[in-house]
């Protein structure tokens, strides 16, 4: 073949390949906002990329079981990691005494398939159940290794608030093991580890795969009467994922039984203690298993605030862009609706009172709850976040539009009418220009509120500067939290200053202070 013929052949081959090749199937993987769930999501995402040829989108940091589960049912996500005990107790509401792990798995599998066409795949291989934990020294001194040993010595219990209340927590446990409590206090969970180490309490509740058990060298006690239901972690997926991407099932099954509790604790510790990124920890572990040929970087999260800010500079810039998009769209929508609505009701006192009361009620709904209310309507992601932020921005704009228009001197309005202005002329030439400073002050308030509230949008998968805040909370990394909080605060101040400038610029010159 001549060189030209080879070239022609190569060009044709590329065209043919392009014609045959289809775009990779898209799969969305979700995760609840804690380290272990994010790690499991990364593991699933990476095997789906490597072994099912999928383009995977990650929706991590979702607010909790309810948000994840609803997103799955709606089809906003295709798969996430769930725990069988949570499926049984929280989602199905089954309070009966649980059977062995296999029976619980079978029960949730059948129920989820029949009710929602959702599929539980083979579990990852560990049971992340509740544990009670002590320091090894204290346990050895008292001769305690199992929960049934707790009937004898009077101990000081420091328990998380949720555990104190749940029927499958302290109330049931007391009954099952006849605990001898010298004193029991409710505590913030993250503080119980230090309290144990300091000897302020003897015993605390935790999760069996919690990295902090390792970090603090604590001893988990055996649940020898099988009081706690099994919480086996497994991929929970939509059935239609497997008809759409048949290779997905086999890919996810590669992870079945590959993570025991000790392994999961080790991976959690790599993120929380060793400050490595979940994606890198997942890649390194898949290499260990021979499931990935990717090279994992050993990069760790910086330990200082300055280091964290520098390390994340590119990411921060991207998240700031997302944040501005969310707030910009929400404020524009709030102006688009609030301004005409304010104009329409400003001369009708009763309607105005009604509209302001309505917007006021919206304002009193806690932001995280308002975001949650948007989920059934819009699913997860950017749309519900913009909708919720829009509702927050509405009140200041509506209120200031009404107040601004009402503050216009009645004599000037009469003069305008007397000169032959129509209602539209009056609005355009007299009322709006004179009310502009007050209306713009409302827009400014709305924008600043929205920039602040948008940090919560990360909980429903909308991204923005809330992302590092949520992740930082779950891995107890203050610098990571600040790497989201500081830019968000700076953004709020900047928006405030810029809009203050706009306000001054839009104030008619004749009304400005000399």
């Amino acid at each position, binding site marked *: 073949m001549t060189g030209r013929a080879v070239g022609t052949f190569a060009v044709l081959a590329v065209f043919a390949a392009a014609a045959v090749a289809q775009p990779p199937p898209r799969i969305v993987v979700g995760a609840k906002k804690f380290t272990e769930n994010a790690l499991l999501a990364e593991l699933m995402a990476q095997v789906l990329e490597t072994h099912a040829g999928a383009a995977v989108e990650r929706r991590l940091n979702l607010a909790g079981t309810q948000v994840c589960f609803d997103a799955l049912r709606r089809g906003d996500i295709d798969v996430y990691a769930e725990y069988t005990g949570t499926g049984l107790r929280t989602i199905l509401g089954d309070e009966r005494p649980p059977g062995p792990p296999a029976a619980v798995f079978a029960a949730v599998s059948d129920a989820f398939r029949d009710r929602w066409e959702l599929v539980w795949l083979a579990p990852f291989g560990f049971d992340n159940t509740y544990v009670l934990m002590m320091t090894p020294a204290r346990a050895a001194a008292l001769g305690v290794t199992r929960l049934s040993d707790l009937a004898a010595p009077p101990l000081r219990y420091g328990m998380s608030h949720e555990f104190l209340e749940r029927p499958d927590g302290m109330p049931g446990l007391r009954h099952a093991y006849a605990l001898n409590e010298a004193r029991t206090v409710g505590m913030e969970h993250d503080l119980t580890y230090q309290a144990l180490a300091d000897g302020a309490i003897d015993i605390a509740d935790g999760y069996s795969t919690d990295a902090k058990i390792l970090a603090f060298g604590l001893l988990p006690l055996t649940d020898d009467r099988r009081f706690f239901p099994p919480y086996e972690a497994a991929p929970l997926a939509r059935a239609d994922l497997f008809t759409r991407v048949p290779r997905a099932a086999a890919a996810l099954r590669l992870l079945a039984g590959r993570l025991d509790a000790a392994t999961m604790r080790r991976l959690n510790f790599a993120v929380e203690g060793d400050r490595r990124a979940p994606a890198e920890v997942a890649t390194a572990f898949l290499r260990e298993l021979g499931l990935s040929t990717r090279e994992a970087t050993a990069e760790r999260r910086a330990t200082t605030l300055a280091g964290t800010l520098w390390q994340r500079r590119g990411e921060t810039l991207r998240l700031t862009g997302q944040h501005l998009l969310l707030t910009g769209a929400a404020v524009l929508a709030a102006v688009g609706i609030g301004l005409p609505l304010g104009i329409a009701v400003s001369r009708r006192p009763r309607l105005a009172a009604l509209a302001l009361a309505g917007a006021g009620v919206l304002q009193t709904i806690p932001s995280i709850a308002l975001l949650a209310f948007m989920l059934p309507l819009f699913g997860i992601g950017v749309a519900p976040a913009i909708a919720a932020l829009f509702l927050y921005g509405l009140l200041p704009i509506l209120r200031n539009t009404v107040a601004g228009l009402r503050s216009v001197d009645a004599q000037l309005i009469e003069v305008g009418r007397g*000169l032959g202005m129509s209602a539209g002329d009056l609005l355009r030439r007299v009322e709006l220009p004179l009310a502009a400073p007050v209306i713009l002050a409302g827009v400014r308030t709305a924008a600043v509120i929205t920039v602040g509230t948008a940090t919560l949008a990360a909980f429903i998968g909308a991204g923005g500067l809330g992302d590092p805040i949520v992740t930082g909370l779950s891995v107890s990394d203050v610098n990571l939290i600040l790497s989201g909080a500081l830019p968000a605060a700076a953004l709020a101040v900047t928006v405030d200053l810029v809009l203050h400038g706009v306000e001054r610029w839009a104030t008619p010159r004749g009304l400005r202070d000399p």
Partner: protein
Amino acid sequence: MIAFEAVRKVFGDGHVALHALTLTVRAGSTLALLGPSGCGKTTTLKLINRLLTPTAGCVRLAGRDIADLDPIALRRGMGWVVQEAGLFPHLTARANVEVVPRLLGWTAGRRRARAEALLALVGLDATAYAERYPAQLSGGQRQRVGLARALAADPAVLLMDEPFGALDPPTRRRLQDEFRALQARLGKTVVLVTHDVEEAFLLADHVAVLHDGRLEQYGTPADLRAAPASPFVAEFLGGRAVARA
């Protein structure tokens, strides 16, 4: 030119502002509506440009019931001067004068020429004052701009509500004299509301004295001085007329 025919005005709260007012303003003449506050004179003025609507009776302009006219067109054809000028604070002196021409859709060049001519007519140097905002003008200057604004579209009728009331006496006197000279040149039909007897006698061809919504007397200043129609008119004119003498 302007005729009130048995016009009655009752406000929503039941207050009767005018009882069956019948009155004519001749084209090109100046009528002063004179009386103490609350007598119905401002109500009468606002009935002419339909800022208020008669409860009974009608107001005619050149023979036509103004209720049949488009209120916006009607108002654009009448100049309107109010107490303390009522200038729009967010507009410059020039833009205030250009309000009605702008509503009428005049071109920028025509508006500009008109505004400058009018500012000159009322004694304001356009280069010095046209771009000033009301807050940067004295009370007298504001009132001049207010007058220029009312004259902008060259209306046949000029309605003036206590136009010089808020000014200090020397400024008021000067503006009154200037207005009289201006009116002699322009020949508008003017209805002037005032509680100031001096002002009414100085500026008006005819004076209508109102009291509690009723017309007490109508006549030329000379008629009123010579023969007050009622003790009220005699007392009202007397107290103030002495001050002038």
